[in-house]
């Protein structure tokens, strides 16, 4: 009984996260970066003030973790062409100078933080490799 109540609660928190927060972010890649940013760099645990206030902190944490993993696998399954288009949308919504954005992302590789803690290592490697390729393609297009 307790477990089913908990599951329903996590599902509610997950739906709430999708409707109130994630649906406002215009691209899947943006959602991935947003979800990764709700994770503490030191402990690896997720936190979202609003979600934790509506549900319990533990439930909110679980919902964020599930959403992060799902979006990560969805983005990792994109073809290179789809990923380039997603990254381009993300670049446009960031309102940064495209050349500076591309240079910073190629040098600093901030997208590494987008990988969930328990991700399959091969998929994580494919994701990083595809992002590197997509950045190179976007840069090539601008030259």
């Amino acid at each position, binding site marked *: 009984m307790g477990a089913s109540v908990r599951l329903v609660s996590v599902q509610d928190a997950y739906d709430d996260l999708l409707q109130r927060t994630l649906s406002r972010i215009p691209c899947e890649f943006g959602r991935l970066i947003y979800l990764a940013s709700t994770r503490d760099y030191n402990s690896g645990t997720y936190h979202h003030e609003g979600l934790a206030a509506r549900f319990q902190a533990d439930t909110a944490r679980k919902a964020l973790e599930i959403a992060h993993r799902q979006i990560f696998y969805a983005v*990792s*399954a994109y*073809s*290179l*062409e789809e990923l380039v288009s997603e990254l381009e949308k993300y670049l446009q919504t960031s309102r940064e100078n495209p050349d500076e954005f591309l240079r910073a992302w190629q040098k600093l590789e901030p997208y590494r933080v987008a990988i969930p803690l*328990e991700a*399959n*290592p*091969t*998929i994580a*490697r*494919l994701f990083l*490799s595809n992002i*590197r*390729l997509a950045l*190179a*393609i976007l840069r*090539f297009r601008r030259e």
Partner: protein
Amino acid sequence: MGISIATLAAVLLFTAIIVWVKSTLADHQQHFASGESLNREDEIASGCPAEFVTQIFARNDLEYVSGLGSAQLKKFFAQERKAVALYWVQQMSAQIRRIMREHLQASRRSRDLELATEAGILLRYAGLKCLCGVLFFTITLAGPQGLQGLAARADAWAQRIREAQLGFQAAKETGKIHGA
């Protein structure tokens, strides 16, 4: 002529062995550096999902990059995809090796071994190791594109070994419960 082909084959084999040993060592170092260690049961139950294996070995991304008309990008793509494909082969090979080691240890302690089942698992393991060697060698020389069928077969064999090990563990657990 015969000698030069044999020499060439020997050199290629030697190169493949060196590449294999170097990459295995690098893999071990990275394993400790990154703290990569999954829960044992998760590790047995899950390999890389088949859709991602297909993606690594598929041609559509290569066709897209070729269409961009940059030799440099094409070269970069070939390097990146080759590295991912080799990593997948290493991961699968290492995972199956660990599973077999555990299986052998458990089998030694088991009192009701079925010889035919054990021989089947061992044969499958030997076949998969050969297939991994062929994949590694071919990817190193020619890249992963076009090897989708071979990769899918290796993935299916690895999955069967994982399932056999899970079945073996479940049978052992049931035996313990009944024996208790």
